[in-house]
């Protein structure tokens, strides 16, 4: 203000005071006038800025509304008319500060009304204006007035200074001064600031402070500590809001580039909706705060005044929600998909009804993509999961491993409101559908899915399920699983004849079809004695065909016989045909899911074992054929020398005993394998096959079947040593067979030599026998005389007997070892084998230690 204006202002003010006091303008020396003038100056200098925004139209509107509410509608109309005219006056000579004039009029008018109301009381009790409005206003004006009044009354009426109540007056004054000093900013401005802050915008005084990480009133503003704390508390909402908002915008910005995921998007959308609600509330509050409230006048305690305290009440509920959201945002920053839903679900377990409802609403939105995935997976087998959010993960695999490896549960993505068993069921149902579709080329599952949906009472539409309906989901899944599993098993049993194939495998690979095995052994035997690298698999395939045709197997289903193949395993040097030959069963899609390569490899091992056992048995039977004592042979020996004859007989006896022992072992082992192992396991398996409810059950049953065969046939891990000693035994038996053959060749040769001089009828007999013996080497003894023949025979028999003795000794010790190991095995069935082998307690008596 420059000097000229200053003097002008002084003059005007003096004029005003004079006018108001209705005194003679010349009488400016009157102390009363001087006092009033100084007082007026003080008032003016104490209030430099108005507390409201300079908006003429708003003030006029407020005046008009009040006139109207007081019943003076005609006044209101006139006033608005006048105001329009007044505000249209522009240019030189018009009033510049129109809003100030209006505001002035309004306040004066208000003041007059209130003065009228209190005037009588203040006249009678001049000590203190105790009405609340004056107190709450608490300005110096009051004090000034009181001072004036006092001094003015001092003219001799009474002295109030001595009044004891004046102490109270002083105290009040001090308090009011204090309040005034502290409150540099009016509360209403603070409220507006807080409202701004809560939208994440800096207010005039309350600003975001990065160091404190929150909205605070700047230190320069002078307000009481309580107000500061309160503002700080209220602005927490703003801080939370910023957090949530930034999360939403961040994930939305990131969306096309990175995969936020459908669940993440749903979460953002739900948060956004909550924020919209919040905005609505803020808008309402702001409108309420903007309501024109008289600010200086004593009627300030009107109803819609929005104080900080009221604000704190209004903010109580949004604060809870916003806090929750902020916590969720914090939690979910790194999570996605099912994991995110699970994390949010953990927060939904809350006793507070408000929180519970809020979380439920949020979760319904968040989980809807997830439930949709479950629905389409269970009913249609579709894996609509481009962001890898579902708890079922698919992998591109070959058809045969689709069931085992194609899909798996991703436990990280499994939200906790879906139990593990339910998840397994969900996984299996979808897997079954995919299995049917891909491997079985079947379309019947669609009806099953539809049926399941109607049975569970839900629609097959999208979005039929939601969070909180876990029971409905479970029943849907159970219904679907039941039907689809049943359908799948039907397809496997009926269309793909699983049972028949299992039986075929048992008959051919596990050598259950005796006549077939016998024929096969007979015709491939000579071929397999050749070295492995000279064997042609085509020839073997032809032989297999012959074996099938000549046995009862020929009446089997041609489809099954088609699948039976010869397989030669990779062979090393020195392997015989016996070592590499095996049969193979081609399972084909979709049964290769059940008969996987590893399963077939185990079948192959069982086959090899059984084949070896059969071969040993076959060899023993072959030996028996040559060893069989008959009258022809025994008769021919009568002509031998006594000593030689005795030796021959003892050797033969040795051989027979040893054979018998071996035969006992092999027969019993064979019996055990066939009846105690294969048939029993098969019977269990058949029962379980009937009871199986889904493919997993079936797989487990089959696995159990194989495992039991494996364990009981000494093929398992734990019976490795037993298995090895068994094979040594087998080899020994095969060696025995060749020895026995050589012995009998020698005997036949001897016989032939001794028969040379006998009857021509004998000749015939001998020549026919010679034809049979392919392995004889005639000529070694031919040139020698009878004596030499006898001598040689004796020598040969001695050698043979020694060898047989060694063989018998080795066999006994091996068998002993084998039998000793048997009880150590844990499998209970092996005890029966021991029992069977040692039925007469021959072995245990022989070696009581065992």
């Amino acid at each position: 203000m420059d000097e000229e204006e200053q003097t002008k202002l002084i003059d005007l003010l003096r004029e005003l005071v004079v006018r108001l006091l209705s005194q003679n303008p010349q009488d400016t020396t009157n102390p009363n006038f001087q006092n009033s003038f100084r007082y007026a100056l003080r008032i003016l200098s104490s209030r430099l800025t108005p507390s409201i925004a300079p908006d003429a139209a708003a003030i006029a509107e407020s005046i008009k509304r009040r006139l109207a509410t007081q019943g003076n509608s005609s006044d209101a109309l006139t006033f608005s008319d006048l105001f329009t005219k007044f505000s249209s006056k522009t240019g030189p000579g018009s009033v510049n500060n129109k809003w100030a004039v209006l505001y002035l009029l309004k306040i004066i008018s208000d003041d007059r009304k209130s003065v009228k109301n209190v005037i009588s009381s203040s006249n009678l009790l001049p000590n203190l204006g105790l009405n609340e409005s004056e107190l709450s206003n608490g300005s110096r004006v009051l004090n000034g007035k009181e001072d004036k009044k006092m001094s003015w009354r001092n003219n001799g009426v009474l002295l109030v200074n001595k009044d004891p109540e004046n102490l109270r007056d002083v105290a009040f004054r001090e308090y009011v001064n204090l309040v005034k000093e502290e409150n540099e900013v009016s509360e209403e401005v603070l409220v507006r600031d807080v409202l701004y802050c809560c939208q994440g915008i800096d207010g005039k005084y309350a600003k975001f402070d990065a160091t404190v990480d929150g909205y605070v009133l700047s230190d320069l503003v002078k307000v009481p500590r309580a107000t500061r704390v309160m503002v700080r508390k209220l602005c927490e909402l703003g801080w939370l809001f910023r957090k949530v908002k930034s999360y939403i915008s961040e994930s939305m910005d990131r969306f096309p580039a990175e995969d936020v995921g459908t669940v993440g998007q749903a979460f953002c959308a739900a948060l956004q909706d909550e924020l919209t609600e919040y905005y609505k509330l803020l808008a309402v509050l702001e409108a309420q705060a903007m309501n024109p409230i008289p600010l200086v006048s004593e009627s300030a305690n009107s109803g819609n005044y929005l104080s900080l305290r009221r604000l704190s009440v209004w903010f109580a509920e949004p604060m809870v929600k916003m806090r929750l959201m902020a916590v969720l945002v914090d939690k979910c920053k790194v999570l996605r998909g099912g994991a995110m839903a699970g994390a949010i679900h953990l927060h939904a377990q809350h006793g507070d009804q408000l929180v519970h409802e809020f979380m439920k609403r949020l979760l319904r939105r968040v989980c809807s993509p997830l439930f949709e995935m479950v629905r389409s997976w269970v009913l249609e087998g579709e894996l609509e999961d481009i962001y890898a959010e579902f708890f079922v993960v698919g992998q591109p695999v070959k058809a045969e491993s689709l069931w085992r490896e194609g899909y798996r549960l991703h436990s990280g993505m499994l939200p906790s409101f879906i139990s593990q068993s339910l998840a397994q069921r969900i996984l299996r149902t979808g897997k079954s559908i995919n299995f049917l579709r891909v491997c079985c080329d079947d379309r019947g599952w669609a009806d099953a899915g539809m049926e399941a949906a109607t049975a569970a009472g839900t629609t097959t539409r999208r979005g039929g399920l939601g969070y909180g309906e876990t029971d409905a989901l479970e029943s849907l899944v159970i219904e679907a699983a039941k039907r689809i599993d049943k359908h799948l098993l039907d397809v496997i049993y009926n269309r793909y004849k699983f049972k028949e194939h299992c039986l075929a495998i048992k008959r051919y690979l596990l050598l259950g079809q005796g006549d077939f095995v016998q024929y096969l052994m007979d015709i491939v035997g000579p071929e397999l004695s050749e070295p492995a690298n000279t064997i042609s698999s085509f020839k073997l395939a032809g032989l297999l065909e012959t074996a099938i045709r000549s046995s009862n197997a020929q009446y089997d289903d041609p489809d099954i016989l088609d699948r039976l193949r010869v397989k030669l395993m990779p062979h090393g040097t020195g392997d015989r045909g016996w070592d590499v030959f095996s049969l193979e069963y081609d399972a084909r899609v979709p049964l290769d899911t059940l008969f996987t390569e590893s399963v077939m490899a185990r079948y192959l091992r069982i086959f090899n074992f059984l084949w070896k056992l059969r071969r040993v048995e076959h060899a023993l039977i072959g030996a028996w054929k040559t060893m069989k004592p008959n009258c022809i042979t025994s008769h021919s020996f009568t002509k031998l020398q006594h000593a030689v004859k005795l030796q021959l007989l003892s050797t033969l006896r040795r051989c027979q005993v040893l054979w018998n022992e071996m035969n006992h072992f092999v027969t019993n082992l064979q019996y055990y394998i066939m009846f105690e192992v294969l048939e029993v396991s098969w019977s269990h398996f058949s029962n379980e096959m009937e009871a199986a409810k889904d493919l997993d059950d079936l797989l487990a049953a089959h696995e159990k079947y194989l495992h039991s065969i494996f364990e009981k046939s000494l093929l398992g891990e734990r019976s490795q040593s037993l298995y090895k000693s068994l094979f040594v035994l087998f080899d020994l038996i095969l060696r025995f067979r060749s020895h026995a053959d050589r012995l009998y060749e020698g005997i036949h040769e001897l016989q032939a030599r001794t028969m040379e001089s006998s009857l021509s009828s004998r000749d015939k007999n001998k020549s026919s026998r010679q034809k049979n013996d392919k392995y004889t080497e005639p000529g070694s003894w031919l040139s020698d005389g009878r004596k030499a023949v006898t001598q040689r025979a004796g020598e040969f028999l001695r050698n043979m007997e020694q060898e047989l003795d060694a063989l018998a000794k080795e066999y006994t010790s091996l068998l002993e070892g084998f039998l000793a190991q048997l009880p150590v095995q844990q499998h209970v069935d092996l005890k029966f084998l021991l029992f069977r082998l040692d039925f007469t307690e021959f072995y245990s008596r022989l070696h009581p230690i065992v």
Partner: protein
Amino acid sequence: MDPEAARTARESLDLAFHMSNILDTGLDRHTLSVLIALCDLGVNPEALSAVVKELQRERSPSTPMPTPTSSMP
């Protein structure tokens, strides 16, 4: 001051005086004009109103009868 401006000023004062009467402020025309001038000088209207109120109230106990200015048209 040119006559146009003077006329505008007078009309403005008339309008303001009308409004003042409707609002029953008890101000006479002259006082109002002084107040308008003060407002134009940028004085805070709240302070002005306080001055008016205080001085009016100070006077009212000493002169119980209504001021002649308020009854003026």
